């Protein structure tokens, strides 16, 4: 059970970073931390104690396998996460060119 709590603590660490950091790149890194904590949770959900990779061996019907579906989900989610992170970094680079700073307090042209 401890490992699930550690996962949740990692999620909260990322959330803390998103809320408190002022540097745009650090916010992006915190978002990645949140993302990976969820990937870890998904991988843990599929884990079975003593399980092996799910390639069915007909000669040994009693063998335990890990659940392959969460692994497929994690792979898909990692690819999606790559796309969001790349998009976010591209926007951050464009913001730096326009504003000349990474500080979120100085990027405040929209109000109200």
């Amino acid at each position: 059970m401890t490992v699930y709590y550690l996962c949740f603590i990692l999620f909260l660490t990322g959330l803390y970073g998103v809320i408190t950091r002022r540097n745009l790149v650090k916010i992006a890194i915190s978002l990645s931390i949140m993302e990976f904590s969820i990937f870890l949770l998904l991988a843990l959900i599929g884990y079975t104690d003593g399980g092996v990779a799910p390639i069915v061996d007909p000669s040994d019907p009693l063998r335990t396998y890990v659940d392959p579906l969460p692994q497929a989900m994690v792979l898909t989610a990692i690819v999606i996460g790559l796309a969001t992170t790349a998009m976010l970094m591209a926007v951050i680079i464009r913001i730096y060119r326009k504003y000349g700073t990474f500080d979120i307090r100085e990027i405040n042209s929209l109000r109200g």
Partner: protein
Amino acid sequence: MNPLIPLFVALPLAGAFLIMILGRLIRHFDKVVASLILLFLLVISLISLFRTGGSVDVYKVGGWEAVNRIPIGIYMVLDGFSAIVLCIVNLIGFLSAVYSFSYISRYTSGNFFYALFCLMVAGMNGVVLSGDLFNIFVFLEISAISSYALVAFGVGKDELEATFKYQVLGAVASFLILFGIGLIYWKTRTLNIADVRMVLSSGYDRSFYLLVQIILLSGFGLKAAIIPFHAWLPDAHSSAPSPISAMLSGVLIKAIGIYVIIRLFFNMFAISEGMAVLITTLGTLSMFVGVFLAVGQWDIKRLLAYHSISQMGYVVLSAGIGMILIARGIRYEVAALAIAGGIFHLINHAAFKSLLFLNAGAIEYATGTRDLKEMGGLAKSMPATSATSFVASLSISGIPPFNGFFSKLIIIVAAVMARFYLLAALAALVSIITLASFMKFQRYAFYDQDPDRKKTRAREVPFPMLFSMIILGVICLLLSLLAFPEVRELILTPATDILTDPSKYSSQITGA
């Protein structure tokens, strides 16, 4: 098995890639292909809307049949409710694509614009049709990522700031959604919505699912910009190019926010009264606070964006009233009426809010400003824009005989019949404040010319923009027909049936 269902996702995806490859070589390839694809999808979505009726049409991707009644393939489900949302997505998509023919001349690289546009439509169609939770997440991310790029399309200071906020909050929302989906899979060992319902119907752990429901509600609430989660919406919707604002406000927040909330809470979870009261409260809050935030705005698109929050509040509120009544197990006909009113308002809002954003785009195209204080007297120089925006303003403020009146009337009548008198009074009050706010918009933009100022040299916008606005203006009038019982039974009743009957959706899909 309806072979047309996968086309809703496959065609726009193929279109996006073709535009990126061939768009450089062939002139106008992007515009023609994108609008033809969307027109074709609009036609087949209208056909399926009339043909689906009360049935639930399932397409199993790859033909994987269920094993021991446990669905193992990827299911795409077309029922009355998703057919309605598909129609809205493709209708507004087609009209925005036509509108962009001339509007896009403000920007460079129209190829990228149309490719991203097609991707966004593909994602939304996928979310609406998907029958399993993880595919909802995947398609939601496709449409979200392309909408991040489209909001930043102008790459000015405002656009970049808005898209950064939108992306950070959108990413947090996606993580919450993925977290919720993971938790559901942990307990039920299935991702199919209908199958989850079957597993839950044989008993479940109340406190665990309360956590899951709250996580999913905050995730999709962030996507739908319900009030405590609304901070990104006014920036993102007002900074985007106008046809994209029309798509974001008109359909994106509905297809990937409200639609999924309604689908999951009615058809997947067992409805509990606590969650129903929470959803009703959030809806009332959005409706009430949104309109007050809108009143003080002088930027047209920002004003319209805050009104989107408020009008979506009506939809969430009526769905919540329906949920409360179903949870108490009393007066199903009133619950059905409330839900029908909510879906009706969702359709209407897509029509009039897209029209208003297209009007705002036309004004910006002609005068170069979005500030209401710098306009005035446009009624003479832009008669068609003025007339259509007048229709849309009357619709959104609920003046008969336009569509907004009938849907608000149904929602208020349902609230009175369910004995939520306070909610009914608030809904009527918000409607009056909306009217005041749009009278201000009409007066400052189109009438009330300041004699001291030199005459603005605004001219009427080109034909493709006029075409989209006039068609939407006509649709605003025609949608009033949905208030008549015969038309309502044809279109709204199948959707409300699938939502009010707790087990119809799951039993039709799993065949149990």
